[in-house]
């Protein structure tokens, strides 16, 4: 066998798997858009009637109104025109502010992305050492105490803990611009950015699951025969184990926990007045601002699906055998 050739074949196999994943991602996004559209299409009240102050004429005049506003009459026509606009980056205008939704979502989405990614880093920075230590010393008392602490922290209601943190920092240390929407003038603005991130990373309920999953995986891999062989011949155990025991589970946790962290961000943003997607979604639900909430749902689903796709890519890259399945 010529080595170069097998490499090309392997790459082709990887490409095939990724193409399949991409197709699955697209199918899921279509499903999400249909769900979102169906929920709002079933909502009581006709938006066109609302636009005309509640008195929508019937019959032919009604059709004329739709025609004048350039709105398709059938549900699938409306769905297709909505999706078509989405693909052009046109998310419609907010019913409340009249501003284009896409701009608002990008602006606040970046702030939420910062919060989410930072929180995931915090979760992993805490979870990985505890999980590895726990896998190496399953019966130690210190591990039992740490595990319990992780459980308790994960069950704390984020909204209450947020107020406690604000109280402690503003009242006791006097260094925190309480509930100022956009950073505030005071010093320690970096702290203002850091606290919500720490809170979301520690207390959004993802920590205990991350520790559990990582510890199980590390313990499982350390018992595998190839690791025992490595240990027996005096090779570095971690150099052989880190891919399967750490890289894969971490990628999986990041991908599978992003929806939860995004959900937790809604509450943390509410507590800290963080002007992100969560507050936008809250406001939109309050005002029944359909274009905004639809756009947010689609943006969130896009982020989740892309993260999942990235996870599959990492999986196939680390474990080329997977591409033959």
């Amino acid at each position, binding site marked *: 066998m010529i080595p170069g050739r097998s490499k090309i074949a392997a790459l082709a196999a990887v490409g095939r798997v990724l193409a399949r994943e991409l197709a699955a991602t697209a199918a899921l996004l279509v499903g999400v858009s249909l769900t979102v559209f169906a929920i709002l299409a079933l909502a009581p009240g006709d938006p066109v009637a609302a636009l005309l102050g509640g008195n929508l004429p019937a019959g032919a005049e009604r059709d004329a109104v739709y025609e004048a506003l350039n709105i398709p009459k059938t549900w699938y026509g409306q769905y297709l025109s909505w999706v078509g606009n989405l693909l052009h980056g046109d998310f419609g205008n907010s019913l409340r502010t009249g501003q284009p939704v896409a701009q608002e979502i990008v602006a606040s989405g970046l702030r939420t992305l910062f919060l989410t990614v930072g929180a995931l880093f915090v979760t992993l920075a805490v979870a990985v050492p505890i999980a590895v230590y726990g896998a190496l010393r399953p019966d130690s008392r210190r591990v039992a105490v740490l595990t319990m602490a992780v459980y308790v922290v994960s*069950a704390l209601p984020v909204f209450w803990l947020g107020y406690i943190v604000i109280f402690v920092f503003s009242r006791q240390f006097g260094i925190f611009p*309480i509930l100022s929407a956009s950073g505030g003038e005071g010093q320690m603005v970096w702290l203002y950015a850091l606290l919500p991130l720490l809170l979301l990373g520690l207390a959004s309920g993802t920590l205990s699951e991350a520790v559990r999953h990582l510890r199980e995986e590390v313990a499982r891999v350390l018992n595998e025969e190839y690791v025992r062989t490595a240990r027996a011949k005096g090779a570095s155990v971690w150099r052989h184990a880190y891919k399967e025991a750490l890289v894969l589970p971490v990628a999986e946790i990041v991908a599978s926990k992003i929806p939860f962290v995004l959900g937790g961000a809604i509450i943390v943003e509410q507590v800290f007045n963080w002007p992100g997607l969560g507050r936008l979604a809250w406001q939109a639900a309050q005002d029944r601002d359909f274009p905004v909430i639809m756009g947010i749902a689609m943006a969130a689903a896009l982020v989740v699906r892309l993260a999942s796709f990235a996870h599959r890519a990492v999986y196939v890259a680390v474990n080329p055998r997977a591409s033959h399945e």
Partner: protein
Amino acid sequence: MTTRYSQAQERVSEYSQLSAWSTARRADRWRVLYGAAVAVLVLVSYALGALHWLPRDPEAMDLQAMLLGPIEQGYLLGTDFMGRDILTRLILGIQAYFLPGLLSIAIALTLGALLGVLAGYRGGRAEMGVTYLSNLVDSMPRLVLMLLVIAAFKPGIYTIMAVVGLTTAPTVATLVKGKVLMLKARNFIESAVALGVPPRAIVFRHILWYNCRTLLLIQATLGMAEAVLIETSLSYLGFGVQEPTPSWGNMVQAGANYLLQGNLWVSSAPALAILATVLGFHLLGDGLNNMFEGGQRR
């Protein structure tokens, strides 16, 4: 000879019945004990609230006794900013999530078990469908979906919890599917088929009842924890249960301003109730999972 053999077998099966508790790690026993205690306490408090056997009137305001701490002036857990008894309102707060939570669990387990068995037993398209549904549900943060539903319908807490149940069903289905695939490879299903046991009996009795009930019970306890979290979060955000009806979520929210002024207790009492309850149901679920399902991923 045969009798002794069957006696021995009986004894083995007896031990294997006992073994889940007797071979469990001590940590898991404590988890289950604490979780069961929390579950019983929630159930009893729910019943007390439903029968209106309450320590005090939940709406009665005592303007002479506002913002009291625990055990002040005879109020066991103090009073809130309107002088209402916190203990009474905590007990009543269980009404906000208990029945809606049971509804969501019932929907998730029934639908999930049916879909899971269908996917695992039939395979093929049913399996693909369940995988797709489960990925679809995972694609949207649950709270975003809730806000979407709230924007569309302005629903009550029962409708919200029904949606929670619907979105949990694919997760349960995936777990049941995995279990059925594992069971299908074992001999007793094959023997049952060979003996002419009707498929309905195989599926409902041998698969779901004998082999999936602990899994479903575990999912039910985790579902209750989730119901508490969702209800309190939404009530905190102002979309769930509204004042003056007490919910642990709106109690935290209403007390937050006083908390920032330094009166920690009003807001913390319901928060600690949330903590103890969610922790209890999580520990119960995980402890049972370690005992009966060998600690597999849930």
